[in-house]
């Protein structure tokens, strides 16, 4: 990792470590020509994996990111299954899914209650000092408390299976290390009703509040694009296995039943000189027209149904809002997240009633039987892909990871441009409220910068307005 240069990145403005940097480029007529969300640090994790064994990879990659360790753990274990050429025993598959449901609940709850709801309830023009959880707690203490409880429930599901301190790499190639204990199952089952109540309340609150934000819904990344996610062989919502599907803005299926392990046949990865994060695109449409979105919004647009009653009911209202077509505003990632919390809680309920999650038959052991393994998994933020190539002894020769935030890279830039165009409106100065909305627009995707850069948590933001010759017209910086 040390001293490794990936590519030289030219940043027009002073590089600020750990800051989200947005540049807005005006054309001669003062219109927004383009806006860029820069990712200015690289992790070089792919190189770091070289020389390690496939069995170590879940443990190693779970350390890539402090925010989504579970996602990397599960994607890596799946890539390991492929190299061992084994199918994990059924209880292991259920347990991995149970853990991922816990991850959806905790991650989506964090995104909605802690990061998004201050904006949704207090507005984008509220004082910066109030647009945070503390402001939210003052305004709506019940909601803030609910958020903490729901997130804690998700974390408890994860901890009951593979607490980092107890089982640092719980998911392994071939399965998992331990089943759920009957005590943990009962403990979780007792807390499930409250979690469900909170999720439903939040969903209703969102549906009630959203008409007030019609303008933001219009401008926070509202444009046609493709959507990509895993679906089950029957076309249902899927989060850990299955096949990839692409739909367009009309929710017409563009491609279906795609073998995730052959991703490089249909996903290209473009490189831009100003960002370390690559720009994946759908090959048949080329770059950048092949822009697609992943994550909660994409999963709900792609699937035919979710497959559980409450979530399908909510999906019905979601679909109706777009007349059955795809919901194309990235603002509604928030909505999709809430629906997925409901879905994940319903699944958790099913697993807790299933005696198989207590079964000790959770691990298939095998040696190296394939030299290439691709693990594709739906992380809370979207499709996550681990691709390993090993030598005959199981040592990694090459690793390629495509993280969820990467798939959304093109769409995030489009979103930033759309918001800038709307709120700059010909001005040569960055107006009040633009910064908040840019931040809100990016936040809708809940990007995990930590997967690709070192920055984590609240995002300090720097926005630079550039004239047609690249001259700096204005600049605003905001600490987190």
């Amino acid at each position: 990792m040390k001293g490794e240069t990936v590519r030289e990145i030219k940043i027009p403005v002073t590089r600020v470590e750990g800051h989200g940097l947005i540049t807005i480029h005006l054309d001669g007529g003062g219109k927004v020509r383009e806006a860029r969300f820069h990712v200015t640090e690289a992790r070089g994790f792919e190189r770091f994996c070289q020389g390690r064994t496939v069995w170590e990879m879940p443990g190693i990659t779970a350390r890539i990111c402090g925010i989504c360790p579970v996602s990397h753990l599960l994607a890596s274990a799946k890539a390991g299954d492929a190299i061992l050429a084994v199918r994990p025993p059924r209880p292991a598959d259920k347990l991995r899914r149970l853990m991922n449901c816990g991850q959806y609940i905790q991650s989506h709850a964090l995104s909605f209650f802690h990061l998004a709801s201050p904006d949704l309830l207090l507005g984008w023009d509220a004082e910066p000092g109030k647009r945070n959880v503390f402001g939210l707690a003052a305004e709506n203490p019940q909601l803030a408390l609910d958020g903490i409880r729901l997130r804690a429930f998700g974390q408890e599901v994860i901890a009951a299976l593979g607490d980092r301190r107890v089982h640092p790499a719980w998911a392994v190639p071939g399965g998992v290390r331990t089943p759920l204990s009957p005590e943990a199952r009962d403990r979780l089952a007792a807390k499930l009703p409250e979690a469900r109540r909170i999720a439903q309340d939040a969903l209703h609150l969102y549906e009630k509040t959203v008409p007030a934000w019609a303008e933001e819904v219009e401008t926070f990344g509202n444009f046609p694009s493709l959507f990509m996610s895993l679906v089950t062989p029957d076309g249902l919502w899927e989060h850990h296995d299955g096949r990839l599907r692409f739909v367009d803005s009309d929710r017409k299926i563009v491609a279906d039943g795609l073998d995730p392990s052959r991703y490089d046949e249909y996903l290209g990865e473009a490189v831009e000189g100003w960002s370390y994060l690559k720009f994946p695109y759908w090959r048949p449409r080329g770059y950048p027209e092949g822009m697609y979105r992943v994550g909660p919004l994409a999963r709900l647009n792609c699937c035919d149904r979710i497959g559980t009653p409450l979530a399908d009911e909510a999906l019905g209202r979601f679909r109706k809002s777009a007349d059955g077509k795809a919901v194309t505003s990235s603002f509604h990632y928030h909505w999709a997240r809430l629906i997925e919390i409901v879905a994940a809680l319903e699944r958790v309920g099913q697993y807790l009633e299933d005696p198989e999650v207590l079964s000790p038959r959770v691990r298939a052991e095998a040696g190296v039987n394939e030299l290439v393994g691709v693990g594709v998994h739906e992380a809370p933020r979207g499709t996550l892909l681990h691709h390993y190539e090993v030598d005959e002894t199981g040592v990694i020769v090459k690793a390629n990871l495509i993280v969820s935030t990467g798939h959304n890279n093109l769409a995030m830039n489009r979103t930033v441009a759309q918001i800038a165009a709307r709120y700059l409106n010909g001005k040569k100065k960055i107006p009040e409220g633009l910064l908040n909305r840019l931040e809100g627009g990016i936040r809708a995707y809940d990007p995990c910068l930590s997967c690709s850069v070192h920055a984590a948590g609240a995002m300090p933001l720097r926005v630079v307005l550039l004239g047609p010759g690249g001259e700096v017209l204005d600049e605003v910086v905001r600490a987190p």
Partner: protein
Amino acid sequence: MIQLRIDDTPVQAEPGETILEAARRAGIRIPTLCFLESLSPRGACRLCLVEIRNWNGRLVPSCATPAQEGLDVVAHSEKLAALRRTILELLFAERNHICAFCVSSGHCELQDLATELGMDHVTFPYRFPALPLDASHPKFGLDHNRCVLCGRCVRACAEVEGAFTWGFSGRGVETLVEPDLGGPWAQSPTCTGCGKCVQACPVGALFEKGKATSEQVKRPEILAEVTERRPRA
């Protein structure tokens, strides 16, 4: 019986016993790493250093120094603690010990020693050597990145299994344990695949394939057990 003093306590030793053995029988703990009961002592790691007051304060490895009449041994002092911590720091700095995803984390003698001796950070610059990992053997792996060159595998293989597979190649900091005249392990004509070296290894350098983070638990005591149970001529 030999009479000596360790940390101002009178201790008795049988002729031929080392200072370490005498201390252990008297319930005085001295940290060790390269020493393993039933294998010949080697004096490779120097963690068991003690100070002999009546030898002008000379430092000797207690695992390899015979107990002698009248010795006045200091096994624990500020100075010795500092020396032992320095040795541990050097061991950590020498190779790539990334405990966070090591197969042995939580069951590692080097880690345990760091905890016991209060070595909580490394003051020397890390060397970050680029060392290979040999996973060619169907059952076991060898990761040079975690080897502390204690030689327990070498002695277990030679003295208990009688296969003489392992040896050292290179010199000084470049030293590597290697099967026969060099790997890969799978091609070793002498290795019997018994796994005694793996059990003897105090760290995550030798491991059973297929183990994930923290899953590797070793039983180094089996070497003493099989030696004792072995019928003698």
